[in-house]
């Protein structure tokens, strides 16, 4: 038993290491702050290690870790009793040293808009649009229905388009309603 465990442990450690970059990216994009994200990643590593016997080898380690980090994120919000939305300025500094590197839609503007989204919409659009999870996987990570993830992603896209003044298509399917409610009014 000890030998089997040690092999699994090696795999576990290797897989965990391989996921750290994306786990951290998830943390930063979720919180908008590097320091908070790193605290979350640290807690996630410790929690994951403590319950590694509950991880089934061969299943999706990344999704498992994202779930732990996400739970940690919401449990910290509950504990603090408030939402911390202020930006850390880390990314601003990075961008400031590289002016003119990006196109018309500035990455910094995008980051600010992303932080303005409600947490559930932000995590949905990150998981689907950036982390590479399927709707099914994202629904599992967020412990909700697939349809809920889809509608959160749609609302997130619509809201981002508004915040960034991107021309939205009014005919675009399920978002027509939310556009009508939250969209800008074209009254002269």
């Amino acid at each position, binding site marked *: 038993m*000890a030998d089997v465990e040690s092999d699994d*442990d090696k795999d576990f*450690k290797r897989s*965990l*290491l391989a996921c*750290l*970059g*994306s786990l*951290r*990216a998830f943390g*930063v*994009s979720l919180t908008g702050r590097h320091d908070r994200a*790193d605290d979350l*990643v*640290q807690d996630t*590593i*410790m929690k994951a*290690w403590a319950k590694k016997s509950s991880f089934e080898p061969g299943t999706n380690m990344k999704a498992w870790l994202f779930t732990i980090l996400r739970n940690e994120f919401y449990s910290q919000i509950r504990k603090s009793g408030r939402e911390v939305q202020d930006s850390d300025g880390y990314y601003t500094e990075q961008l400031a040293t590289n002016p003119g590197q*990006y*196109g*018309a*839609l500035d*990455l910094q503007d*995008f*980051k600010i808009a*992303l932080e303005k989204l409600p947490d559930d919409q932000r995590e949905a*659009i*990150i998981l689907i*649009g*950036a*982390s590479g999870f399927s709707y099914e996987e994202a629904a599992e990570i967020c412990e909700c229905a697939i349809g809920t993830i889809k509608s959160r992603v749609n609302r997130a*896209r*619509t809201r*981002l*388009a508004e915040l*960034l003044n*991107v*021309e*939205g*298509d009014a005919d*675009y399917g399920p978002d027509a309603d939310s556009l009508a409610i939250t969209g800008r009014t074209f009254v002269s």
Partner: protein
Amino acid sequence: MPGPFGEIPKKLKEYYDSLQEEAVPDRFLDLLERLDMAERAAAGASTVKEPK
């Protein structure tokens, strides 16, 4: 070709990828090593096992 949300999907990916490309801080690698070593030490205390 931009979709109904223009550059947004591309920007999201660009932002996320830039985060993913950042170096993972050493303290996380150290933490993993420490967790692993602590566990090995604990296991070694209960089961005598020579490395091959």
